[in-house]
């Protein structure tokens, strides 16, 4: 609100100057004032919108938690055994609940990244460790999808200066996508290399690939290719947008190469930090 007050004071000061000007100069200054007023209004609306999304998302999480927990108790048989039909219905309800939780989490993440209100402290972290942790989290999912995950870490510590949770978010998003969009029997290979002044993580899959027509849209919000929708109808097209925003904020890059039907390789590049963890 300090900025709004500052601009209002500026407008008041300029109004006084306008009174002492000729007609054309006065018109110019008046236009400038109108633009500044519109700008203030937009900034205020933007702040209100962000606050609304943030509060709404937090409030939505509470009833979602109760739904998720009670559905899980039913599935666990804590309240008595369900018959197969009841189990199917509760299972579907729970899948929708988890999907909604994921959407709310993504919206909060997007809002946070766009506002950039909190700068997370950067510390030396070993990317080898985070990649290993992230891959381990997907052991069950990869087994369920019958996808083999190979991990090839750098022989020396791959240190970067960054916020570990942000880097983890990036890795989890990319690895999750690779497994999700690789058909049964396929392979996902995650490699970490230290090359000159960079730490490079590549996630290569033998999955469905990205159609050429969609390549320039994959980092945009709510963007999903048709072949991706067929494999996973539940996505929202926010994951890669979040990845690109985080990589921007970390001063790194994300790029990809892909051939539809053959697979994709996503490459994350971070600046190598030569200090210790």
């Amino acid at each position, binding site marked *: 609100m300090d900025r709004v007050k500052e601009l209002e004071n500026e407008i008041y000061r300029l109004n006084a100057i306008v009174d002492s000007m000729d007609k054309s100069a006065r018109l110019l200054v008046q236009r400038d004032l109108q633009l500044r007023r519109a700008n203030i209004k937009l900034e205020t609306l933007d702040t209100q919108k962000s606050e609304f999304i943030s509060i709404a998302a937090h409030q939505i999480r*509470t*009833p979602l938690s*109760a739904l998720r*927990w009670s559905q899980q108790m039913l599935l666990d048989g804590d*309240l008595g055994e369900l018959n197969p039909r009841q189990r199917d219905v509760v299972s579907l309800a729970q899948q929708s609940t988890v999907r909604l*939780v994921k959407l*709310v989490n993504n919206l909060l993440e997007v809002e946070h990244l766009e506002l950039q209100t*909190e700068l997370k402290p950067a510390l030396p972290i070993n990317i080898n460790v985070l990649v290993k942790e992230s891959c381990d989290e997907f052991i069950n999912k990869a087994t369920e999808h019958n996808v083999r995950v190979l991990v090839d870490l750098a022989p020396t510590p791959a240190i970067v200066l960054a916020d570990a949770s942000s880097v983890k978010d990036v890795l989890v998003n990319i690895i999750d996508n690779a497994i999700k969009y690789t058909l049964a029997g396929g392979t996902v290979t995650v490699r970490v290399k230290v090359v000159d002044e960079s730490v490079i993580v590549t996630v290569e899959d033998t999955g469905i690939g990205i159609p050429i027509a969609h390549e320039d849209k994959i980092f945009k919000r709510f963007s999903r290719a048709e072949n991706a929708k067929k494999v996973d109808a539940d996505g929202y097209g926010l994951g890669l947008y979040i990845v690109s925003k985080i990589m921007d904020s970390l001063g790194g890059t994300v790029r990809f190469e892909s051939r539809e039907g053959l697979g994709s390789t996503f490459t994350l590049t971070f600046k190598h930090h030569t200090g210790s963890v």
Partner: protein
Amino acid sequence: MHEFTLTNKTIYLAEDDTFLASVIIQKLEMQGVIVAHFVNGEECLASIEKTLPDLLLLDIHLPGLTGYQILDVLASKQITPQLPVIVISNSGQSIEIERIQKLGIRDYIIKANFAPDEVIAKIVEALSTTTNNLT
């Protein structure tokens, strides 16, 4: 070596959403836990000062005394080192997590992101660590 059990452990639950609280209580009671539920911060703090539970499950956004204020009081009275606290919240904002981590809590759970069994696992972890430390 025997398996750690929650039977007869006392847990105070400070949660103002009664439906969510009832789900947590059912899950805990099935493990043999004795649960005392509080919907506001004042009653929860008064009970802690009277009798220490084995663990406190604390929502941050409570009516009256907030979770932050309760943690402040517990820290100032040197209660926190003896009482494992797991914060359950739906905010997940890093500023909140950093603030409460400084107040000596054992764990932080974003409720919507966890299944009940995972919450129980965190409680077991917190209590078994405490027990090990004491023995």
